[in-house]
């Protein structure tokens, strides 16, 4: 069948099961837009800024497990996608980004809105393409989805010149594509699996460190089965949150820079660390040479390059978390570790997270209430900063795959568009965006998109008038010299939200928190609560960068008496 490149692209997206695309038009991609009316099954969400499209595609992908799709025009449209792509790359999120490009004859001439987007995105995509013939579109799209969604997922960018979008060719959608250099490994060699099972059987103080890979491979049941059968407590990385039920007796918490002290201490005391789908980021490990000093390490990881990169594995099981756990489970004899479990419990009691002060409105309180009122079953999308860490600490996740955050890149502004994407992917769920006043102002224009498309995200805006996490570093490491972290004149966020068409309310008092949350959830469309929270509260515990559990700072004395 004869089609234009643009039509082929839309048809190919449909073949890949795509139903939503986030984007914004411009000259180079216009031919694609003008074919959209012929493809009513493709829902296009017109964003306000292309960064919003990229983050939304990322949020959509995390929420659904399927590639999110965004597109943009050449030049500035394409460069606006860059932060979002870098975020998806760092966090292994499947995204397919399509950019318009100047016509083939103009490439290389510094034409109007020409940018070398394939060159720019080489280090921040899993792979990218410049399509030079319309006839290649179907195959490239097929490959892009294959690459984005399989193995260790990641973003793939496809750059298409304007005249390729209008060129006609025969449409043939390939069932199979050949990528000779791409062979993701699913299962680990069985001798290695046996070795791992042996280590688990022999361990006295085993600990599971669950990462994003558990969620990506949907290995929830397998993880739980391993934990229960080997009576092994579970700690989770930031992106591993909601891979294991937090109300489970074997759940410990998140370790690391702002993790629970007891979770970091448990790693310190463990004699076996079973790391699943994680890459030993410095936010988890602190000083590498002092990390898990008493433990052998079993590393289950789909990307061979992550094995032995930061932490040396005693047994490396390269493969997909779900597959490898399924190989491992039959070899695990039920065992108990009563002393170790008692010890972990002891650590939990002795180093419990602090409780919010009742005399001030603190973020921790808001998050505790949100957790309670939503029964730990809402999708939580955060920005980056203090609110992100408190959300990780105080929201108790009781269902799989509820936490979405820019972990690796740490991109402020993620909280608004990614929440929009997550909500579109999971219309059945309540989505709460936990926003910082800093990050919110980076991408808040997408509120218009949400109102326009009736995407009912609820916002808990943690308004502390500070770039709080940076202020905290200035407080702790620069003698309270606050430079460029205070927003002395934030806008009236309630009026602003109302101007966008949201329902909004301001909360300054502890007593009004519950009511506001209930009201926001009763409201049909998007809603925002502007929480005027304690401005100079710091996140604890904290292990200063590059240091060890020994340097862990717990809540300062004057705050301890607020503990339950």
């Amino acid at each position, binding site marked *: 069948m004869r089609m234009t490149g643009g039509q082929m692209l839309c048809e190919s997206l449909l073949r890949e099961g795509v139903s939503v695309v986030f984007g914004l038009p411009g000259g180079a991609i216009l031919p694609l837009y003008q074919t959209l009316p012929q493809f009513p099954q493709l829902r296009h969400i017109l964003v306000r800024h292309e960064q919003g499209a990229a983050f939304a595609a990322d949020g959509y992908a995390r929420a659904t497990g399927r590639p999110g799709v965004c597109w943009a025009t050449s030049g500035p449209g394409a460069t606006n996608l860059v932060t979002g792509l870098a975020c998806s790359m760092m966090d292994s999120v499947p995204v397919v980004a399509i950019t318009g490009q100047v016509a083939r004859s103009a490439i290389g001439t510094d034409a109007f809105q020409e940018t070398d987007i394939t060159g720019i995105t080489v280090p921040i995509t899993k792979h990218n393409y410049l399509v030079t013939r319309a006839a290649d579109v179907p195959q490239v799209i097929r490959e892009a989805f294959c690459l984005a969604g399989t193995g260790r997922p990641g973003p793939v960018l496809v750059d298409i010149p304007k005249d390729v979008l209008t060129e006609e060719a025969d449409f043939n959608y390939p069932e199979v*594509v050949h990528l000779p*250099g791409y062979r993701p490994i699913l299962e680990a060699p069985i001798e290695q699996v046996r070795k791992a099972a042996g280590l688990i059987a022999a361990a006295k103080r085993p600990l599971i460190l669950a990462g994003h890979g558990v969620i990506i491979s*949907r290995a*929830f049941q397998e993880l739980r089965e391993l934990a229960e059968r080997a009576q092994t407590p579970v700690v989770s990385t930031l992106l591993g949150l909601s891979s294991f039920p937090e109300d489970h007796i074997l759940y410990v918490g998140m370790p690391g820079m702002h993790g629970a002290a007891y979770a970091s201490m448990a790693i310190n005391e463990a004699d076996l660390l079973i790391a699943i789908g994680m890459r030993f980021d410095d936010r988890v490990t602190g000083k590498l040479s002092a990390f898990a000093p008493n433990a052998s390490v079993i590393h289950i990881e789909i990307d061979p390059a992550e094995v032995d990169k930061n932490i040396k594995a005693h047994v490396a099981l390269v493969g997909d978390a779900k597959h490898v756990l399924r190989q491992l489970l039959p070899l695990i004899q039920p065992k108990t570790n009563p002393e170790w479990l008692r010890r972990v419990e002891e650590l939990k009691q002795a180093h419990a997270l602090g409780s919010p002060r009742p005399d001030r409105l603190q973020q921790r309180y808001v998050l505790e209430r949100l957790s309670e009122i939503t029964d730990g079953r809402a999708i939580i999308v955060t920005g980056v900063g203090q609110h992100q860490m408190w959300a990780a600490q105080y929201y108790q996740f009781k269902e799989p795959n509820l936490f979405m955050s820019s972990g690796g890149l740490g991109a402020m502004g993620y909280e608004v568009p990614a929440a929009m994407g997550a909500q579109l992917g999971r219309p059945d769920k309540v989505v709460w965006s936990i926003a910082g006043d800093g990050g919110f102002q980076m991408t808040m224009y997408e509120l218009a998109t949400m109102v326009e498309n009736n995407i009912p995200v609820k916002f808990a805006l943690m308004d502390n008038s500070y770039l709080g996490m940076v202020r905290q570093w200035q407080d702790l490491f620069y003698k309270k010299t606050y430079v460029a972290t205070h927003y002395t004149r934030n806008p009236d966020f309630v009026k602003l939200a109302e101007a966008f068409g949201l329902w909004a309310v301001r909360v300054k008092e502890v007593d009004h928190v519950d009511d506001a949350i209930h009201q926001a959830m009763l409201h049909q469309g998007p809603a925002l609560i502007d929480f005027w929270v304690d401005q100079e509260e710091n996140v604890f515990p904290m292990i200063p960068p590059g240091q060890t559990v020994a340097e862990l700072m717990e809540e300062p004395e004057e705050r301890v008496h607020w503990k339950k």
Partner: protein
Amino acid sequence: MKHTIVALVLDKPGVLNRITSMIRRRGFNISSLAVGASEAPSLSRMSFVVEGGEETVKQVTKQLQKIIDVVKVADISKENVVARELALIKVTTTPATRSEIVQLVDIFRAGIIDVGSESLIIEVTGDEEKINSLARLLEPFGVKELMRTGRLAMVRGSSTVKIDDDQLGAPAPRTASNGAPSSDSPPPGW
């Protein structure tokens, strides 16, 4: 320690950029790189000389392997290999020095491929050491220009660095290997 890595890569535009971009951003130390056609029409063969310890070289190998257009990577440092470089050296000559230079060229089994009134171009092939020593010996005569290829290396005997038989023909995974849902169904519970 210097390691020799050989890679087979797809002969496509941009491949070299992907590889050098990765090497630069991860701070790997590559002292030579050579690239050219291979025995297979769609593949180029590259060789790298990497400086660093065992761990670093393993990382280089794995990170290379991760690039989609890189089909095969092998560290052949521990193998019995032949390694060659080619150099062109333009050296200043005078009637007084010419015969001495020619003698050197003979000793090194090099060749003279261009003769000018005041200079010669010498072509020499060999391992790095050999080329280094010739260059050093020519230095006093006045080396006007020197250019060398990277190291080419091949395992001796019948063993080869080649792609696996099924590799070009094997289909890429069709659906998400990770069992992700193919429709909008919610994730399975725990």
